[in-house]
């Protein structure tokens, strides 16, 4: 509007650009450039890529990653969509319970899920030891089967929540129209309802695909040497014989390529398939036979039951007496004692860094979201895309990029806590930005103009009117950022040093040194810490706090 107003928002624009350029674009660009550099740092066109695609040791990683992510995506889509249909359309008992369980299942980071399956079904696992007493044994949980199991179980709740939300916005008249035009019920679903769900289905699928592509901890813990892009990238970068940043960057560039392609493909598809659905009367809950209903109930509870196994296993095992990887029946606080005496620093680090990152995310997120929603220009559209880039870039790649850029003058951040904070902050900035822009689009700009016309200057209007109206979005954006930051492993494992290890790093190293008890105790605290804001959000905001991913 007027000159005096331009100043503040101009500052926000510049700050937003500088932040994203310094902490995301420049590191990623450096990774891309490094992937083309030779051993003596000269420019070698595609030599690293040639090496990648001609050596089985390297190219098997991209095959494994694509294979696992594709299967995991399909599995999560089938499971999540089936559960969404069962819960939305049939009179199952305890629907709220199923929804709550699906939400809870999202709380533990995937690598903790992987670890919990090892606790249960691993070589020294609880189930195998019990079965072993009878002379039985199960097929191995390690390798690609285990990874796939963890991926599907960890990620299907995303699909379930997204598709459920979409199903609730489909009007009954759409199904009625399809039926009245002569489609049998099954065809009415595939021809009339599924197409309307297409944007949500693809959004869910994308989330699963990108998440599993980027997952570093799961294949490390349960893969037993199976190479995926992120694990091989970590290995190449952190090699004890002196890392190979060029090859690590090549792997990172391929990860960026795969994930951004998936993201763009989904955006393009969903943009073309976006329907405006006006829902006056939601889909009816169908009546069905008792046998069918029983089958659906068993199915639904079994699915969410399996999804909750990791968290339950972790919490129960954290109270069991342990020696190394072996757990015994009984109750003990020994694991908690150990962590509070031996690694209290990691707990403090995690909470401190996460809180700081979330506060920064929310402050910048709210301001940037306001710019994006209210002052849309070409520059702001670009800023939006750059911030959203963080969504698609795996933590391992961000970590390598930050190290390469900030371990040399003028700004040396490696070895300090600042570099962890930077990674947490930039990677989770999209959550408050997304939730707040979505909310702002529903807030009538005339409300702000009314305030200005009544004599309240623009910035005070922003504080007195806009912020209170955005409050639910601010809280849910902050809760999402908190939940995803607190268990972050893939960049922490690269960026931490000495005293700045976080809980996720500590869990990881405890698992690898076979201290399962302390790993469980740390993981329990992590799950609880992730759960708290979600719980508080529900208490404060009630139904308004939709978990918009």
């Amino acid at each position: 509007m007027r000159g005096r107003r331009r100043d503040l928002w101009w500052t926000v624009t510049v700050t937003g650009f500088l932040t994203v350029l310094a902490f995301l674009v420049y590191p990623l660009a450096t990774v891309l450039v490094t992937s083309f550099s030779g051993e003596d740092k000269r420019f070698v066109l595609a030599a690293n890529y040639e090496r990648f695609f001609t050596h089985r040791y390297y190219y098997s990683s991209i095959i494994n990653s694509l294979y696992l992510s594709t299967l995991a995506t399909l599995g999560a889509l089938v499971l999540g969509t089936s559960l969404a249909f069962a819960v939305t359309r049939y009179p199952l008992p305890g629907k709220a319970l199923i929804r709550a369980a699906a939400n809870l299942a999202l709380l533990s980071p995937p690598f903790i899920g992987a670890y919990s399956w090892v606790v249960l079904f691993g070589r020294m696992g609880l189930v195998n030891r019990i079965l072993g007493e009878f002379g039985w044994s199960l097929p191995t949980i390690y390798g690609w089967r285990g990874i796939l199991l963890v991926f599907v179980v960890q990620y299907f709740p995303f699909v379930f929540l997204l598709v459920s939300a979409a199903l609730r916005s489909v009007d009954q008249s759409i199904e009625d129209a399809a039926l009245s035009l002569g489609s049998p019920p099954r065809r009415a679903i595939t021809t009339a309802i599924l197409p309307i769900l297409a944007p949500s289905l693809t959004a869910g699928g994308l989330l699963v695909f990108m998440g599993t592509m980027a997952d570093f901890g799961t294949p490390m813990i349960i893969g037993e040497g199976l190479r995926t892009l992120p694990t091989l990238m970590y290995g190449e970068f952190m090699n004890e014989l002196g890392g190979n940043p060029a090859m690590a960057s090549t792997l990172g560039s391929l990860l960026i390529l795969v994930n951004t392609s998936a993201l763009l493909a989904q955006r393009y598809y969903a943009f073309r398939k976006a329907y405006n659905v006006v829902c006056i009367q939601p889909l009816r809950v169908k009546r069905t036979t008792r046998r069918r209903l029983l089958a659906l109930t068993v199915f639904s509870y079994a699915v969410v039951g399996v999804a909750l196994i990791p968290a339950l296993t972790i919490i129960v095992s954290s109270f069991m007496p342990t020696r190394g990887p072996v757990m015994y029946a009984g109750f003990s606080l020994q694991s908690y004692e150990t962590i509070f005496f031996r690694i209290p620093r990691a707990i403090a680090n995690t909470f401190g860094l996460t809180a700081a990152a979330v506060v920064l995310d929310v402050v910048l997120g709210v301001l940037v979201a306001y710019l994006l929603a209210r002052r849309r220009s070409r520059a702001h559209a670009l800023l939006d895309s750059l911030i959203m880039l963080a969504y698609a870039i795996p933590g391992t790649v961000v970590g390598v990029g930050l190290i390469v850029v900030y371990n040399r003058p003028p700004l040396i951040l490696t070895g300090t806590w600042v570099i962890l904070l930077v990674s947490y902050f930039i990677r989770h900035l999209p959550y408050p930005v997304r939730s707040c822009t979505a909310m702002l689009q529903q807030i009538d700009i005339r409300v702000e103009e009314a305030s200005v016309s009544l004599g309240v200057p623009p910035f005070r209007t922003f504080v007195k009117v806009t912020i209170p109206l955005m409050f639910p979005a601010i809280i849910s954006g902050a809760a999402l950022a908190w939940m995803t930051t607190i268990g972050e492993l893939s960049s922490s494992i690269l960026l931490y040093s000495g005293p700045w290890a976080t809980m996720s790093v500590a869990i990881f190293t405890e698992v690898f040194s076979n201290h399962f008890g302390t790993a469980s105790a740390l993981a329990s605290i992590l799950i609880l810490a992730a759960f708290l804001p979600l719980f508080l959000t529900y208490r404060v905001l009630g139904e308004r706090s939709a978990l918009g991913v």
Partner: protein
Amino acid sequence: MTRVRVQGIVKRFGDTAAIDGVSLDVRPGELFTLVGPSGCGKTTLLRIVAGLLDQDAGSVLFNEDRMDDIPPYLRNIGVVFQSYAIFPHLTVAENIAYGLKARRVPADRIAAKVAEVGRLVQLEGLMDRMPSQLSGGQQQRVVLARALVIEPRLLLMDEPLSNLDAKLRVQIRSLIRAVQRELQITTVYVTHDQEEALAISDTIAVMDRGRVLQVGKPWELYLTPGSRFVADFIGTMNVFHGRLEGSAAAAGPRPMVTTFGERWQVCATGASGAQIAVGVRPESLTLERGANADEVWNSLTGTVVEAAYLGAVVRYQVHVANGLSATAEIHNPDFAAIRAVGDRMTLWFGANRAVLLPESASEA
């Protein structure tokens, strides 16, 4: 009371001029309406007067004060928006008190003024409600009270009634008019509804494509529209074309020959042989020639193609010639006034009821 002058305002969005050189003079205490089809620039002009939008050229003056560099929050105006723009997180009383708090009015004065204005717009008993618990009409009264309570120099209303149902619209319209008269606040009112404009305004400006076509009292616009556009937009107008005859020097009505061959007498100036258009309102067409012998009467004959009997009125659509039909409204019709579709029908109008419609450049 504030006189508002708008001088040579131009506002461009990209290549198109949303406001293309508009000047207006709003007298102190009057209700001045901007009316026109959607996209004519009326809301844009209102937002410029409010200061919510900057003009590319021209000035806005409140009395002798030039407002061009004054931001909206210092203009002391009350704005009522089409979408209400109620503060959803504040109660009714807090909504109304909002502007007073910004002006640092003492709390007891705020309470008294809020109660007073609440009474004025009939909101007693609803003061502690949240906006979500209010009906559309009640919300509209809240935002009206919120705008009035600050005793603005100027009240600006942007289609305030368009989200209400027909009955409420008439109720709130009377309320707005009564309150505005009582407080004598200069008001600029925007609507696309010509009936609303006629009913509520002291003065109306008809806008089209960024320009003001005509400014006048409601009856001036209706009875003597200055252009074809105004004639069509305010009410309904039958338009007939023809050739003017007779001498320009002669006093009284002059003969014309219509495109369908009728010879009429009309009040017009111009050279003999000039092509002219005359407009006749549907209610000016009657079934019989009037009794007044001094008046000159014209007639046209055609076939009834549509007849709508509405009790107080019967409305006929009469096919006069190829591609030309006339609408006639016969008020208080008796049995003799009833015609069926397909009947031949002759309609009369007094020569002084026909208006000459100049074809101006801004016409569609």
